[in-house]
């Protein structure tokens, strides 16, 4: 036996509640984060990810209490991301009970924070979250891909997918690993919310560009999407939100389904 693929429920938290946008429109309340964390943990989730999408820094300060509450009810690892800008933000999250901290915009704006975090807390705490989107304006400096006769590259987006950076995802993951990242949380903006399946091309190419673990995110609508991403790429973990939130499939149900189809999971 060997290391299993990880199945990771993601909880988007806004003002202390779990929310889920349906097709980028109405944000629907999906429950209490602490209750959901406890439920997923007992159902066999391998890890949890919390993304704080609270708009203002002022309201975000409540994350510390939330991290503490979650840490006291679960006995599996969890990552907290969203709005992490500095060493101090990360420290605040880690010292209150999170195992890893996810940094996205903060790492693009100040890449040396990756190294600082690694040196202080160890590489395994540092998750670089990346929102990736196809850009069809190609130039020679980018890693170009072709799909359906169209050429494009994958661009890093920040501020919750609102702002392009001109940075090539494939280059950025290599740089992030070099700087001290322990894991990549890779979200496809193109696929997010579509329930159409993960972005296999993106995932496969990121996995092949680094030697640290990668979590695939964005687009999961059914357990078969997880099977596809695991079979088509050597990705380490699959993250999903909606398929767990609304009881369409329990965590355990999803994992049993995967196991029956020869994906190595912990059951």
């Amino acid at each position, binding site marked *: *036996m*060997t*290391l*299993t*693929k*990880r199945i990771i429920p993601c909880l988007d938290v806004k003002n202390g509640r779990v929310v889920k946008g349906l097709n980028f429109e109405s944000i629907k309340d999906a429950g209490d984060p602490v209750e959901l964390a406890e439920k997923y*943990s007992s159902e066999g989730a*391998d890890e949890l990810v919390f993304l704080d999408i609270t708009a203002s820094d002022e309201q975000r300060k409540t994350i510390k209490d939330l991290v*503490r509450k979650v*840490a*006291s009810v679960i*006995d*599996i*690892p969890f990552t907290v991301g969203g709005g992490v800008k500095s060493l101090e933000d990360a420290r605040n999250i*880690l*010292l*209150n*009970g*999170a*195992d890893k901290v996810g940094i996205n915009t903060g790492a693009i704006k100040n890449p040396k924070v990756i190294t600082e975090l690694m*040196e*202080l*807390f*160890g*590489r*395994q*705490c540092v998750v670089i979250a990346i929102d990736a989107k196809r850009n069809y304006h190609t130039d020679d400096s980018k890693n170009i891909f072709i799909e359906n006769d169209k050429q494009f590259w994958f661009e890093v987006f920040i501020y919750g997918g609102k702002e392009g950076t001109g940075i090539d995802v494939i280059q950025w993951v290599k740089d992030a690993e070099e700087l001290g990242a*322990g*894991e990549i949380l890779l979200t496809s903006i193109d696929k997010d919310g579509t329930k159409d399946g993960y972005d296999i091309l993106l995932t496969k190419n990121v996995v092949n560009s680094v*030697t*640290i*673990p990668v979590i695939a995110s964005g687009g999961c609508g059914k357990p078969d999407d997880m099977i596809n991403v695991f079979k088509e790429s050597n990705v*380490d*973990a699959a993250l999903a939100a909606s398929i767990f939130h609304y009881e369409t499939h329990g965590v355990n149900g999803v994992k049993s389904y995967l196991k029956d189809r020869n994906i190595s999971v*912990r059951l």
Partner: protein
Amino acid sequence: MVNVAIFDYGAGNIFSLKNSLEKIGATVNVITNFDDENIHSGLLLPGVGNFDPAMNGIRNFSKIQFKEYVGNMPVLGICLGMEMFFGKSEEGKEKGLNVIDGEVIVLPSGMKVPHMGWNNLEIKKPGKILEGVANGSWAYFVHSYRVKPNSNDVITAESDYGIKVPAVVEHDNFFGTQFHPEKSSIVGKIMLENFLKECKK
């Protein structure tokens, strides 16, 4: 009731470990040096941080040194905490605690590093920490280095990650897990309970 201490090197999540121990009935104090009177029946070296800063944290802020403080008291080293039991580590330049003969080396290239996620325990021989733990049980690992004891006798369980990674070691009153029991669900809880049982003896 059993009273144990967690040594805090100041780097990372010890809240979860403290919480797990309290849930199974321990009284837990977090200590940052060995100079106060030892009122504890067990010590835990948590698995967060980096080798050199953690060793400096253990060595530089106390008049009383580790071995003197610990005596025959059971000590559980988790991940980095277990790595510190050995003489030296490729992660740093500082000397380790040297209570188990051997060294700490980086995981082989060719596999993803860190080794992160749930892996099986292959139980090699009975051990105090492993009592009641079934062969093949899942544990949560996250590490970039592995221990290489001079004697394989101290290894009670291994895990397969391309090579055999020592997962649990026991030597006298020193117990080590490369994985995180506080993050390993019910199986981890059994092992922490086993450790507390040792502390009560």
